[in-house]
């Protein structure tokens, strides 16, 4: 089956993820102690080469906190910080001047993982409540839950990170689905991204269920 989503299906997914972004905004605002807005910037189904550039230039060094997605949908949800932006986030959390933190030690990695945990859980709770495929009795995913695994921490090239995350889809399809959400504090965009990358099997399930939605 070719799991290419139509524009309408992508719009529907975007609207659902928009609700998740709204809930994630509240959670991350409380965590950072500042108003943060999370926005779904893209629901993209693109070829491999385009997917590798979603986070910017391929050799950009990023700090990534991947969480394995388990339950009704499988795949990865990954909070990605451009390196300096991630270190600045640690400074915010530790109430110290921006620029104080210069490397990813144990404490810094722990702060990044906790941020990912808070954002990811808020997002997934909202998705679980609003994804019609989890509510429809006719859906193969009906009644399922969305569970995040514990966040990891990786320092990685942007393109390599995406290659790892998208491999499961690439086995099944030439068109890869990525939902990207971006973050801003008081109108200033942060160089963070929250990526939702379903597995190949979940992409096919999403496609089938959205087709009948």
């Amino acid at each position: 089956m070719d799991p290419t989503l139509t524009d309408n299906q992508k719009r529907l997914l975007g609207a659902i993820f928009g609700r998740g972004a709204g809930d994630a905004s509240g959670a991350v605002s409380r965590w950072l102690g500042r108003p943060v807005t999370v926005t779904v910037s893209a629901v993209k189904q693109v070829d491999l080469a385009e997917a590798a550039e979603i986070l910017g230039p391929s050799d950009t060094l990023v700090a990534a906190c991947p969480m394995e997605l388990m339950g009704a949908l499988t795949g990865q949800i990954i909070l990605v910080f451009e390196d300096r932006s991630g270190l600045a986030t640690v400074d915010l959390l530790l109430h110290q001047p921006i620029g104080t933190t210069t490397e990813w030690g144990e404490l810094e990695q722990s702060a990044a993982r906790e941020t990912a945990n808070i954002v990811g859980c808020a997002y997934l709770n909202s998705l679980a409540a609003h994804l019609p495929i989890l509510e429809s009795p006719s859906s193969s995913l009906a009644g399922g839950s969305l569970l995040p695994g514990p966040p990891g921490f990786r320092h990685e090239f942007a393109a390599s990170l995406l290659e790892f995350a998208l491999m499961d889809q690439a086995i099944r399809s030439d068109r890869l689905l990525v939902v990207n959400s971006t973050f801003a504090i008081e109108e200033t965009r942060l160089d963070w991204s929250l990526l939702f990358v379903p597995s190949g099997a979940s992409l096919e399930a999403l496609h089938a269920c959205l087709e009948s939605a």
Partner: protein
Amino acid sequence: MPLTDKPGASEEMISVLIGRWAVASAPKLMRTLLGSCVGVVLYDRLGKIGGMAHIVLPSSRGSTDQPGKYADTAIPGLIEEMERTAGRKLRTRLSAKIFGGASMFQGGASIDIGRSNQTAVEQILADLGVAVIARDMGGETGRRLTFSTVTGIVAVRIPGGADYEL
């Protein structure tokens, strides 16, 4: 001479995207970023012609849409293009270096795919009579390759690690 991040005026950098290949003559540099994919670097030392493929999966299963994506179509395609560039058969003069096949996610598809890609690439190169003279495979991090068509040396950078050359 170590390879640097910034090519000189005479060293044009060619980026090889995922699922593609490229061929170039000296003094050009070629670069790619790998995760669980496998990078195949072929070099004709006499003619100073280089080729690089960024392979995603082992087998095309007959598909012809994206030959650069699969080991069984990318490697023969890369060699053909190198031979067109050289204007002669090169197979007996080529050497290969292979990289990548890392796995970041525990239990993910990339573990098996990395291994399958390596097995397929090595078998295809052996069948074509191309010797593999260096391997840098596996691990848990991505790799950035920079290949000099002047020297045949591939510089490898991994995030947070020391650079090295093969």
